[in-house]
């Protein structure tokens, strides 16, 4: 067994030990993981963003306009002093504003309108049969929207629609749960495979 497998196996077991209870082995693994992952992010961000988008063009090619984002970025560090904390709101404002502006058309078009449009289907298909699934989708969408109607108490017709909406929601949650279990088990299979095959050589 090589060093890499040994190290990985010990750390794998240390993390699994949390299932019994919190313990020093888990705490070491946790601290190591947090530290390494922040370090990894730093390196990747430095290489792929700061170097390639900022420092190389600014100092290499002399693109002086980049001084502005550089300055805005540095203002983030105003957070470390109570007097300069307000400065850090400026770069945050750029991030939030730009994000909100870009979100509006996407939310309106790709999300709301496209999904509405896909809900509309002829209920009588060309082969002269009734389109039950299409009707169910329509009912499902409308009743679920009724569940998310807040302005009035859920009574009467609205109440009934909202109740049906809850059932549709529950079908969705249940189905999703089934698929998600599949995903989660795959991850565990991956780790067990590593322990049994690479570490213990019990099977191949």
């Amino acid at each position: 067994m090589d060093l890499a497998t040994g190290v990985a196996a010990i750390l794998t077991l240390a993390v699994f030990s949390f299932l019994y209870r919190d313990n020093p082995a888990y705490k070491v693994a946790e601290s190591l993981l947090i530290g390494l992952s922040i370090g990894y992010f730093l390196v990747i961000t430095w290489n792929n963003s700061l170097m390639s988008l900022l420092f190389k063009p600014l100092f290499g090619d002399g693109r002086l306009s980049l001084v502005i984002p550089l300055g805005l970025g540095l203002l983030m560090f105003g957070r470390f002093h109570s007097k300069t904390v307000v400065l850090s709101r400026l770069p945050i404002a750029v991030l939030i504003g730009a994000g909100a502006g870009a979100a509006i058309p996407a939310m309106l078009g790709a999300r709301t309108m496209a999904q509405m449009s896909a809900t509309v289907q002829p209920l009588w298909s060309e082969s002269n049969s009734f389109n039950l699934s299409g009707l169910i989708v329509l009912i499902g969408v409308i009743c679920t929207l009724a569940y998310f109607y807040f302005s009035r108490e859920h009574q009467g017709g609205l109440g009934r629609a909202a109740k049906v909406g809850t059932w549709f929601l529950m079908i969705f949650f249940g189905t999703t749960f089934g698929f998600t279990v599949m995903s989660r088990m795959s991850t565990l299979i991956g780790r067990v495979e590593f322990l049994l095959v690479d570490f213990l050589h019990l099977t191949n």
Partner: protein
Amino acid sequence: MRRRLPQIVCGLMGILLLILYFSGHPIARSLNLLVLVEYYQIIFAFTLLLGAVSFVKVNLKGIERREDRPYRVVALLALVLMPVLALIWGIKGDSPFMWVFDNIQVPMQSTVFALLAFFVASASFRGFRARSVAAGVLLVSALLALLSRSDLGGFIANHVSPLAEWLRDYPSMSARRAILIGIGLGSLTTSVRVILGIERTWLGGWK
């Protein structure tokens, strides 16, 4: 002024990006690119630096106060290790940086993820109770989905799986669609509120 200026900047950025979205003019397109690449990406990169620095600060203080000292030392050493390795040997496929990533970070992360499988088991045992009609519907559709994704052949493959597929393709999809529409509307109004300066939570406080 402490709040007004950021608020104005935020509103202007929002309106700018909104207009740029719809314009096909070359100047608008290059302006769009400028904001997205230079401003957005670079500022965000700095925020990650900020996160790392504040993580170091919090942990140094903890070490001073002798709280969880050994663990904090491990975390800080690990944080420093990655940039040092990258600086000396680079980040190519066979570098020590990638070795640590592949053999220490990835296995630990995958294992934390794999804990989920166990938590799915305990939550299924404890939480999936048919307390009401709605909970019953949740339970039954979960059971059907689980069965349909298992290779049991026979009755399940012929009857349960088609039913589960139908549930997924129509009722389940329609609920997800309504949630998408609802959240789309919510996101839309929040974005408009942020740009107009009505939503100011991000400046601290809601009033």
